[in-house]
């Protein structure tokens, strides 16, 4: 029987070489399986048509002070808020010690454009869209699990771990912003 002759071989002087062949064949097989699995899994990653929408431009001249709009960038909602002077003051007055994810108001905006707050509109907890001008801190309140954000979009209360995420953006002109 084949199994008998195998075990006989293993006890003989060639056992080391046979073990090596087993391990080598197994390793090559595993690499082969992984090599086939990865392209199959990779098809599930964002495709070219999704990645093509990675950068957009938006004209902000029509957003009056105290108003905000929600636009779409890479399928994600983005808040653009034209903050009032009172909101900026309130955000600047917060001591760093009160913040769960400490960031100054300056770090949340671009220099010279501190009235503009541009953030990805998904709550950093589980991705719901918070409601604007609501909650205890006058910023955003997420209805799903009760996260409260202040007027700089910083997390103040509730299960969300971090401040609302800032997308990469630049002011092309004073009224044109490029996101992505």
């Amino acid at each position, binding site marked *: 029987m084949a199994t008998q002759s195998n075990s006989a071989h293993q006890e003989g002087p060639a056992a080391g070489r046979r073990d090596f062949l087993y391990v080598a064949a197994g390793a090559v097989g595993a690499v082969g399986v992984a090599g086939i699995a990865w392209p199959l*899994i990779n098809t599930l990653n964002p495709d070219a048509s999704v990645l093509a929408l990675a950068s957009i431009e938006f004209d902000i001249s029509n957003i009056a002070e105290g108003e905000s709009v929600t636009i*779409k960038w890479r399928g994600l*909602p983005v808040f653009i808020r034209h903050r009032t002077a009172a909101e900026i003051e309130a955000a600047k007055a917060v001591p760093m010690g009160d913040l769960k994810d400490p960031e100054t108001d300056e770090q949340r905006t671009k220099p010279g454009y501190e009235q503009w707050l541009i953030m990805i509109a998904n709550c950093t*907890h589980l*991705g*719901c*869209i918070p409601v604007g001008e609501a909650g205890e801190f006058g910023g955003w309140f*997420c209805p799903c699990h009760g996260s409260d954000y202040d007027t700089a979009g910083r997390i103040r209360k509730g299960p969300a771990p971090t401040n609302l995420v800032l997308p990469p953006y630049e002011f092309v002109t004073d009224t044109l912003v490029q996101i992505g």
Partner: protein
Amino acid sequence: MAHESSYVPGNAVEKWVDERLPIVRFAKEHLVDFPTPKNLNYWWTFGGILAFMLVVQIVTGIILAMHYTPHVAMAFDSVEHIRRDVNGGRIIQAVHAVGASMFFFAVYIHMFRGLYFGSYKAPREILWILGVLLFVLMVTTAFMGYVLPWGQMSFWAATVITNIVAAIPVVGDPILQLLRGGFAVDNATLNRFFSLHYLLPFVIAAVVGLHVWALHIPGNNNPVGVDVKSTRDTVPFHPYYTMKDLFAIVVFCIPFAWFVFFAPDLLGHADNYIMANSQVTPAHIVPEWYFLPFYAILRAIDFNILFIDSKLGGVIFFAGSLLVLFFVPWLDTSKVRSGSFRPVFKWFYWLFIVNFVMLAYLGASAADGNVLGIPVADFSKICTVYYFAYFIVILPLLGRFEVPRPLPPSISESVLKHDAAHAAQATH
């Protein structure tokens, strides 16, 4: 359970088949003659009910897939098309949607029965573990199915639940994009969920096969929890339990049919009749009722635990609430299976049930509201603590300190004593 096969091929053809593929012999041993404890009560019929529900969901699901379109622009309308235009589609769709709820109702009863009567204890650990695995597969399948109608609740459930993986440090975000096929839940997500929603029920069917196999090695547990000792303790599965299960299925179908015919949307949410909109989250999002207890646990962790932030913490507790079930056979240190003979266990068990229902209620409440005058956030924390304490603290300690009541010497004697007690009551 080792027993001699009673199958005798009746003629030359049956003999010819039996020598090549003994499938008739197998069916007779496992579906007809299988020796089953004679004292099984109606809580034991839910296994049969679950098998029936799996068939209902697969059959209605295959038909629905013939009329459904998995595309973000057409999915919502195609479900309405099924409900309004397809012949009998109104009923088929309702059976499938209500069926998910009935399926979960049955699985919760089945699991709570196992927890009360100690059905997870040796030698049935693998049987229990396969059962927990089936529950996890059911949860996954139901979640993906709920996304398919592409209403507001579908979309936001998909967003919130896929976001859970983003809590994993370092690899969370790449995995999230891999899962969604984009930066947000979109057409790619809908398509893959449809594909997986079609696949997973067959995986469930395969694991059910293993579950029944694992059941048929030691045989059924029973309400007194003592082992089968002789043939006096058992009856053949058919006709005794085939008929009992069938009767239970018929009774189970009464509320099922009531929902299907009179209130097909009662268990759903009105918001899901608004087409998915990635720019607006509904004011109050809640999962389907059968996920509420676990949702409440996820939401209860709104504080950082050392270096673990609240989001990851919530996910760890959420996953932990399911994972802990895998370890129950080793966490419960009591040698007595049936809760009927454990005077202290009973109290903690029923408190666990009340606590579980309470978690469901809290999961459905607004995050910033109050229940019984206590803020939802605090109440959820208390209930979450009890959920875990039951498994991790109470079950291990009870086995050491509780004095169980004496067990009957055998199943048959417990049944006879029970009957005698009833007869005595009747004569007085």
